[in-house]
């Protein structure tokens, strides 16, 4: 691994990690195939969430905007996912200059969610050919203690599940967006929940495999293996890029381990979302605000909204 991207680990520490793993335990006391503690904390604003996997911490937020669709896909909305490696997370991350590894991780998260069609982009259509929703999910890495891919993915997925977009009424060519005060905002339609599970492998002896490696364990591994899977036992992606060669049978074996863990994580996410839903209902019964408008422009002023509806209609007429 490049010196510039990973902090050096001493030979003593490396040997210690390896020897411990040979006995089936990790330096922090975990077993080889035990993940770290996962904590998910939802924010006040719909779609904001902070996720931590052990000491690794990630923040994610969603926003929505109304745009024109691509002409060859008039009924499809957009899902944009960005993973930002903030200099907050590690002294090796430079502001707005992602390293090769950061780009790889961010693509892995993006592709796992977008290419597996986790979010139903056709449900994001407002007016075919002229107006669709563009949902943007920004994942920000806050603290790097290894396995950023898994953590960022969980944060993105939780953020999308927690997010509520404004409700829309379409009458002919006229589109009205309702502010959250007028109408309850709407959940995004998701087909499935992809989860990334990563392994670190010290390939001097191929049996040295650890799930959810922390920063030092990642530096010491000679190969990394990530699976994007869901609880329906579908594989959305397998990533093994460079590093020491692995036996394909071993890879499939770990795919099963990944699916087990992904299922457990999915259940935890669904449970926490249900609890969050309940406490949101309590808050709204007490008269406290539950959501804040994801689009700043569509708030408060109903006159502004009618105006916007008219401007939209004019724009459509001009386009015709």
């Amino acid at each position: 691994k490049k010196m510039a991207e990973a902090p050096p680990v001493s030979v003593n520490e490396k040997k210690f990690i390896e020897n411990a793993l040979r006995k089936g335990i990790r330096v922090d006391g975990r077993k080889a195939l035990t993940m770290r503690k996962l904590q998910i904390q939802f924010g006040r604003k719909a779609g904001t969430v902070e996720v931590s996997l052990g000491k690794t911490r990630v923040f994610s937020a969603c926003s929505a905007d109304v745009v024109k669709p691509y002409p060859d896909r008039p009924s499809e909305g957009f899902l944009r996912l960005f993973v930002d490696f903030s200099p907050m997370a590690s002294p090796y991350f430079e502001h707005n200059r992602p390293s090769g590894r950061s780009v790889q991780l961010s693509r892995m998260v993006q592709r796992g969610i977008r290419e597996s069609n986790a979010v139903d982009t056709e449900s994001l259509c407002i007016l075919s050919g002229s107006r669709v929703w563009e949902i943007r999910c920004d994942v920000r890495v806050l603290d790097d203690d290894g396995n950023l891919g898994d953590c960022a993915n969980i944060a993105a997925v939780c953020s999308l599940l927690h997010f509520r977009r404004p409700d829309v009424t379409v009458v002919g060519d006229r589109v009205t967006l309702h502010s959250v005060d007028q109408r309850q905002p709407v959940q995004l339609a998701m087909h499935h929940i992809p989860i990334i599970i990563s392994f670190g492998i010290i390939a001097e002896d191929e049996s040295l495999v650890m799930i959810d490696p922390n920063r030092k364990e990642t530096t010491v591994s000679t190969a990394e293996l990530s699976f994007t899977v869901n609880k329906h036992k579908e594989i959305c992606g397998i990533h093994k890029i460079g590093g020491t060669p692995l036996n394909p049978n071993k890879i499939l074996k770990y795919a099963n381990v990944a699916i087990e863990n992904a299922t457990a994580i999915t259940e935890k996410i669904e449970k926490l979302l249900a609890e969050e839903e309940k406490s949101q209902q309590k808050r709204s019964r007490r008269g406290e605000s539950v959501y804040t408008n994801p689009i700043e422009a569509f708030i408060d002023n109903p006159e502004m909204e009618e105006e916007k509806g008219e401007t939209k209609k004019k724009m459509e007429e001009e386009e015709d």
Partner: protein
Amino acid sequence: AMAGRGRLRSIGCERGVLNRADGSVRYSQGNSCVLVCVNGPMRVSRKDENIHNATVQVFVKPITGNEDIEHMLMSTMVEDCLSSVILVKMHPLTRIQIVIQLLDVDGSILSCAINGAMMGLIDAGIQCNKLLAAVTVTQLDSEMIVDPSKDDEKRASVVVNLAFNANDQQIILSNTNGLLSKSDYHNIINTAQKAALKVEKFMRKFFESTMR
């Protein structure tokens, strides 16, 4: 019309939030919340180095989207404020990096960011020659609101951000948006100074009680 409010919203703080940072603080004023990470003194690139002083670098990261001009402006303002507070002469040829991640924006975000950054510096143990306390005040007709929420700021005719040296109440930052008379400005400063004292009191109390 909204009743004027001379009181700060409730302030919350948690230190040592991040594991890799030299100093980190989660700071909130009402619903506005920021996560501040301070690293330094650390290595600086040739183009940023200064042979007399440490280079102070501030990055303000938005909740969603790419950095906007308003975030870059906030970064510059926080950077300029903190450069006069940190003892930069003690660490030449190094940099002090402050990253402010906005977690929730509900008004008074600039003063929230400055206060959070100040607390982050203390958590990181970076020597400063003054304690900075920032306050935002809005005015609508003749009613002043201290530490306004987002709705308060929208309704206001003028929004003033002030940062004071907590020791002698001198102004380090004064940034106004909107029209105001000299006497209004004077009144706003008086009100803000009183509020800044409360912010300073909170900071001292917090660090004294969380000394390891």
